[in-house]
């Protein structure tokens, strides 16, 4: 892609098998080419290798990547973590809950149950710093974007747009249907790394009450909150 990046595309599908393959190859490339000061990012089905300046000997590099891709053997037990993310689905935060309930002819409590049940997979981070692209939304919750986007969606807002669900890491304009809010900080420029979530990790949402929400907010401000994260064995 241009004179400073190499794009590797896999089958154009969204699934975890492709994700695991991508992440494995990404790790190999990062290890093998450690000295080249490259940056490797993944999306659903692509890897992008970005060089700091114009790429020399492009065809040699492409050959190297081809052989890395074909030789990569995909280990079954991919190391990943599961993060337990508190979300408050109170009507104060869940601005579009009622609308979705009407539209889908289901109870609000069922929306919450359906949204907290799956173990979601983080495919990559993009759109905004700390915005997680999550896969695994229950298809009964698929709902189109709002016909007119909101000028301001609150930081922490949890939304649904088509087949995707996610959390706005900072307040921004947005067109997703909002069902709740998480008190967590998804991106902090003052910590290293600025985001504790990685592609391949899992996320589970846990419904919390308004008072628990504000308690967690307070604990985060005081630096006393510990995000519950465990090893995940798929």
């Amino acid at each position, binding site marked *: 892609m*241009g004179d400073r*990046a190499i794009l590797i595309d896999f089958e*154009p599908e*969204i699934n975890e098998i492709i994700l695991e393959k991508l992440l494995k190859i990404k790790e190999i490339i990062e290890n093998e080419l450690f000295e080249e000061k490259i940056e490797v990012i993944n999306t659903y089905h692509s890897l*992008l290798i*970005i060089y700091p300046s114009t790429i020399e000997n492009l065809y040699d590099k492409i050959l190297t990547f081809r052989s890395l891709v074909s030789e990569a053997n995909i280990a079954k037990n991919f190391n990943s973590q599961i993060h337990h993310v508190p979300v408050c689905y109170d009507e104060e935060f869940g601005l579009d809950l009622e609308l979705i309930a009407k539209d889908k002819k289901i109870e609000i409590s069922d929306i919450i149950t359906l949204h907290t049940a799956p173990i979601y997979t983080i495919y990559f981070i993009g759109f905004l710093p*700390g915005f997680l692209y999550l896969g695994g939304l229950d298809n009964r919750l698929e709902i189109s974007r709002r016909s007119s986007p909101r000028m301001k969606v609150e930081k922490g807002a949890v939304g649904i747009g088509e087949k995707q669900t996610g959390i706005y890491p900072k307040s921004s304009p947005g067109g997703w249907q909002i069902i709740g809010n998480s008190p967590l900080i998804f*991106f902090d420029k003052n910590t290293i*790394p*600025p985001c504790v979530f990685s592609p391949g990790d899992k996320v589970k949402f846990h419904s919390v009450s308004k008072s628990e929400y504000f308690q967690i907010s307070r604990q985060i401000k005081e630096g006393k909150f510990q995000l519950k994260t465990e090893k995940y064995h798929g």
Partner: protein
Amino acid sequence: MGEIEVLHPGLYSSIQDLGRTNFRKYGVPQSGAMDSYSAKMSNLILSNAESFPVLEITQLGPKLKFSEPIQISICGAYLEPKINGDLVLNNKVLSIEKEDVLSFGKRLNGCRAYIAIAGGFIVEKFLGSFSWYNGISEMEVLDKGSRLKYSTQESKTYLLNASIKVDDIYQTNKIVPVYPGPEYELLSSFQKKFLLETSFHLDINNNRMAIQLKEALINKLHPIITGPVLPGTVQLTPSGKMIVLMRDCQTTGGYPRILQLSEDGINTISQKVVGDMLRFRLLEIK
């Protein structure tokens, strides 16, 4: 230490370096000087490292008052720079005395100019870069009354006549070199021909994130599964309008990526303003 008092911030002025790398994986844009070549040259003229932070100014320059003597240089667009009202040149070492005021007049060519300072601005680094970006750095854009600190320790003696050869012909060049983008081959031969033979003009929507072009392409391509994008990626939107992503662009996108500007191409288009004409010239990947 010296201090610059911002008497007038100009249209859009911000501190930039060569960009923020290694945080793209968290969704952090690259940022950095829109025209990296001019930013580098402004530093090299002063014997600074090319990655030192510089002040990027846009079309209407700021008015700045310096508290201590220092050498500066200006590269990129020619915006009629003046020291205490006297016109000065781009691409030279300029000596600033105590209380001098740097201001700008009419834009004669280009869009963005870069002010470098010998020894560098003293600004904070966030996530490995000095570049200002909303939500990452403390500041996003220069405000009236804000102050910028600079080092005065590095008072070197310059041979004022010795100047680095700056090749800024690309600024007025209407040809923007491009490579085929990942979805280029999905275009019909008619679309490809149109892309390479049309004179495009910059639309009013253009900023550090993206530059939109006025002329639209007939578009029958479907959106793609969200994939990586870079500064210089040309996206084809459903309406057929093309968006050239620039330094502050997001890291991923869902529109077909039909072209990819070379680094020179990004620098060239960074020096264009609304209504300016350009043509794409396809480069072969070597």
